[in-house]
């Protein structure tokens, strides 16, 4: 039970927004850019009943560029581009003979890429509302390796509509913010559609040098896809994955433009998804 409670989860690849996004579009000609590495190495997964079973160790490493740019004060373009994605699984070795039973394999490619269009529904109001349309482009490899079970993408084009509501406030004397979103992800190629929601709060510490952020993300599958889809897919690209995750994050600003950020993805629960921690480290730049 402790293992279950404290087991950690991979959260979605497109959830790595740092100090950006939420209900606030970028001001015109302002931007936020981040070069980051996200990875998970998993030797266990959540099963369809939410328990944890072991699996052959799988790893996926994405080196990505995340960018937001304000074309107008209301309209912001968003890109999350994993320009190098590596997926592998370990060798399986007989504990009896030491023989190699199943050789490990790896693939390298670009990964599935998100392109988003955010529109500010409010301006200069205490409550910042925005709507975002995100297109998930299947640029990754969904059938890599000799068995077709290595993936750097899911092979389907998805469209997600998301509504964000954010508000800045003072926590004592400290600047802080909170944001919530809800979204519907329409998936193709027989994959089940998804409901997504998230809560996020951050507080600025050390004279605006450090943002400490907590984020809860949830994906709920509508289980309306084809049963035969994703027969060779492992998490994080399997069909009908679900989770509720908690992701603490720290972002340190060297100055007004440059900073570094790091986060770890943890979980309360999950189904058909890896159950090990995911990590992200990156360097970001604020265009002002």
């Amino acid at each position, binding site marked *: 039970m402790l293992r279950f409670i404290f087991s950690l989860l991979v959260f979605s690849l497109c959830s790595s927004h740092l100090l950006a996004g939420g209900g606030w579009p970028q001001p015109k000609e302002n931007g936020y850019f981040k070069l980051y*590495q996200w*990875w998970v*190495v998993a*030797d266990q*997964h959540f*099963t*369809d*009943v939410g*328990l*944890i*079973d*072991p*699996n*052959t*160790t799988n*790893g996926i*490493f994405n080196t990505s560029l995340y960018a937001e740019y304000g074309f107008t004060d209301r309209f912001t373009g968003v890109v999350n581009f994993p320009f190098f994605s*590596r997926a*592998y*699984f*370990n*060798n*399986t*070795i*007989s*504990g*009896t*003979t030491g023989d190699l*039973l*199943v050789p*490990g*394999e*790896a693939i390298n490619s670009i990964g599935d890429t998100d392109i988003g269009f955010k529109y500010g529904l409010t301006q200069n109001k205490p409550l910042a509302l925005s709507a975002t349309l995100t297109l998930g482009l299947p640029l990754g490899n969904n059938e890599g390796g000799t*068995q077709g*079970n290595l993936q750097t993408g899911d092979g389907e084009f998805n469209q997600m509509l998301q509504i964000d509501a954010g508000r800045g406030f003072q926590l004592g004397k400290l600047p802080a913010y909170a944001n919530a979103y809800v979204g519907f992800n329409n998936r193709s190629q027989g994959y089940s559609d998804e409901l997504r929601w998230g809560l996020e709060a951050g507080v600025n510490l050390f004279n605006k040098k450090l943002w400490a952020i907590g984020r809860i993300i949830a994906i709920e599958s509508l289980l309306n896809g084809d*049963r*035969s889809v*994703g*027969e*060779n*897919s*492992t998490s994080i690209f*399997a*069909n*009908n994955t679900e989770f509720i995750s908690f992701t603490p994050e720290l972002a340190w600003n060297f100055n007004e433009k440059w900073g570094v950020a790091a986060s770890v993805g943890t979980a309360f629960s999950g*189904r*058909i998804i890896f159950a090990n921690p995911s990590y992200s*480290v990156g*360097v970001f730049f604020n265009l002002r």
Partner: protein
Amino acid sequence: MKFSQIIFGALLTLLVYSCIGDDIIFDTVAENVRITSRVDSLAVGDDFQFEAIFVNNIGIEEPMTIAWSSSDEAILAIDQNGLASGISKGDVMVTATVDLATKTITDTWPLAVADNTVISDPESRTGQLRTTSSYLLEGDFELKPDGNNLTLVLSDDYRASSNLPGLYVYLTNNPNSVNGAYEIGMVTEFSGTHSYTIPGDEVGLNQYSHLLYFCKPFGVKVGDGEFDN
């Protein structure tokens, strides 16, 4: 240390971390010898060719010298190639023996030498599935001859999780591994009775000890069922 050196060090660490490693699986099973051709009764004066296989400690069939013996040479004579001859009426036990470095393993088969020769022709072998994971898997199964082929029949009470990607079914002598197992095929039925046809020239009725359900993408065993007979 410069910032660029920290970044370089971090990338180098990730590069090493992203290399293929080794997963060790516990796949030891008890070696066994199994008599695969059987006769219930042998007529006096008739011959019968016994056959047996040896399965090693990882469940792989392996050529091995098998010694044959009869519990009563006055009733049944048998040579070291397993060729038995009925001598006189009575009950007798045939034993197949393999000498290993540290132990001796045997399998026995009882038969009668009588008026007629009756070849053992079991209509089927049966077993019951059980889950060894948290995925649903249950139900009875039967492996039986069907002309020149074999048919594996899953019964009405069969149920398996349909949420697991890439579920395959195997015949194996090692329920902990698909190494050396015979892959029957991908599972496409998740409840109720259904069957698989297995080429008789590739698989013998008594060749394997277990049915194994294995998830290929996750590389993990889901469940198994041992043949009862």
